């Protein structure tokens, strides 16, 4: 595949992420911040996000296992997590987070657990997609 093709491919991948609702405008912001001083800025941020948020997810997992559920704590944690997700523009993940918080407010333990699982799924899917994407980005960069 020549460089043009690869570039096109990359562009399509990127577009799909947006079109399919995985990413939002914030991601574009990150891209705009990328420059010569920080040529891999976006990837670095995403990596940082996944590393840091894993901790939060673990905490929430543990909290969800308790009985009775500490909704306040869950809500608080999720609030934090939402903030993190907003940093990279993880749209679908954020959506699940809002759902989760809504269930917290309703003190719907089952709803919380369900949504949490859903959130984790989206979280993992996005992670995978972005990994592929960045790999491609690096390859294209090598071609230049």
């Amino acid at each position, binding site marked *: 595949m020549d460089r043009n093709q690869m570039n096109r491919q990359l562009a399509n991948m990127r577009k799909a992420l947006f079109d399919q609702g995985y990413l939002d*405008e914030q991601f574009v912001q990150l891209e705009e911040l990328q420059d010569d001083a920080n040529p891999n800025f976006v990837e670095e941020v995403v990596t940082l996000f996944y590393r840091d948020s894993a901790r939060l997810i673990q905490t929430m997992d543990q909290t969800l296992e308790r009985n009775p559920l500490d909704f306040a704590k869950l809500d608080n944690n999720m609030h934090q997590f939402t903030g993190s997700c907003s940093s990279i523009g993880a749209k679908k993940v954020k959506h699940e987070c809002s759902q989760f918080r809504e269930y917290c407010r309703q003190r719907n333990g089952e709803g919380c657990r369900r949504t949490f699982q859903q959130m984790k799924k989206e979280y993992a899917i996005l992670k995978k997609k972005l990994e592929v994407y960045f790999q491609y980005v690096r390859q294209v960069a090598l071609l230049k």
Partner: protein
Amino acid sequence: MECSGFCPPRSDAFPVGLRVLVVDDDPTWLKILEKMLKKCSYEVTTCGLAREALDLLRERKDGFDIVISDVNMPDMDGFKLLERVGIELDLPVIMMSVDGETSRVMKGVQHGACDYLLKPIRMKELKNIWQHVFRKRIHEVKETDSDCLEEIQIMSGSLSEFANDYYSFSMGDICSAKKRRKDAENKHDDREYSDISSIKKPRVVWTVDLHQKFVKAVNQIGFDKVGPKKILDLMGVPWLTRENVASHLQKYRLYLSRLQKGGELEDTSFAGVMGADVHPGDTADNIFLQSPTKVQHNDVRNANCGTSGKKRPVQNNDEKVHDGGKKEFDLVPVTEQMKPLRRDVLDSKKRSNQCLSSGNSFQLLSSDVPPTDPFASQYLWTAEYPQIQCKQESKSHLHLENKFNLSPKIQQNTRVNTTPASSYFSFRPANKKPDDLADLEVQGIREAPQGASKVDLFTIQSKSHLTSSQQYGQIPSPAWSIMNGSSAADHILLDDQLAQRNIVVSSGSDFSSKDTESLNHVLQGVHQPINVGIQEGQSFECIDPELLAAVTPLYVSLKFDYEYSFDSMEYPVLDQSLFIV
């Protein structure tokens, strides 16, 4: 947390090089914000913990222009951090959160946030944060300066004598009670401020001397027309920057405005009433120092309420001269013993005012006391409470010093306020000789700078000022003339345990204080400025210990910064010279 090195302001055009401190526990956001701010050509420092941020800010007081902080921090509530930064450091703070609920935003604003940003934050939002810094600066320089200077020079000369017993305290030691917000969070937890005392490195050390220069400059220019540049020029302190002066001025103003607010005694009652005749029953319950504790004589020295030409209203030494009518007044440094003045003051406010009888002297001014007479004199209140012999009150009045176990830092704050226009505070001696006082108030005080204009007299021009809130029982007419032969008043701010305060006691006019120096003993420990009204020809009588007690706590709770968190006037007087920030 990466905390980059200290960045001095850049010489590029503002806002390039704006020094921003970003505080957020989310490392991802921290990285993003840092990059965004750098792209705005700002100097960025990041911090992941609120406490670290506070430490950093305190360490480098002049190192930052603006702070951006997330609301949800693990180690400290973001609002609290916001408060602290605003109060202690006088920096604009922007809050951030993913939560944009109106109540939260409102809370942020109430706590003093300049702005509240919602995450995800766009770079364009950060581009304009410099406006908050700019706004602050122009507010500081609001007043246009005006005219003359004159006396400042004269005064500077004479005031320099007041150097003895100066203790300089650093800003760091002063808890700045600056509170921007209006919310009546008068519940200043004195303990809260104790943290501030851990500040070790102030930006500028506003020594008594420096502050006096400042006050003189302000007086010269005219309070209404004052501006940092003018003050700076007048002060003639080469190493001082306009910014230093601006921030000092701001605090000073806040302090003054608090005083003027008068009204409830609350915590302000700083009417340092010391006094000769403290009339418990007086309605003018103006006791600056109102503390529940009794003031003890111990170190109370007698101050000379020099009505009868006695000198120095305040003596820092153990001079106890009691003449008929002349008492020497020494303020005892307030030490840690001073407890939450504020509360005490409030309580004490309720007490009868200890008005000094007409023959005497100091009267603690408290906001309760309706201004009876114009304050002719200002009383210097040294940290060591003078032994005031209360004519009527028991000697217990003199136990001021108990309350103020001031560390031996006494600062003298003498300012001469000769301009009627400058209505800082007027100590109004609640003396029964209105004419004397009246004379003092405007003119008498003018006399202050007579020979010795070492002392600043603060006169409260409008009765609405302190006077309304403070009443001086009887303030002897120019009792104190700090200045030799003139009705000069010294302000002594009592400093609290932070030892940052000076007790300012303005003495009445007649203080022929040849020993002006003694007048200007400002006890660092004294927290509250005590306005003692001395009636003409009379010296302080005694200070109601209760008053003193009340004052003491008040002082203690006063943060040195002019910005007191109390709404009520805290220092009815004072502080002009000894404002040490």
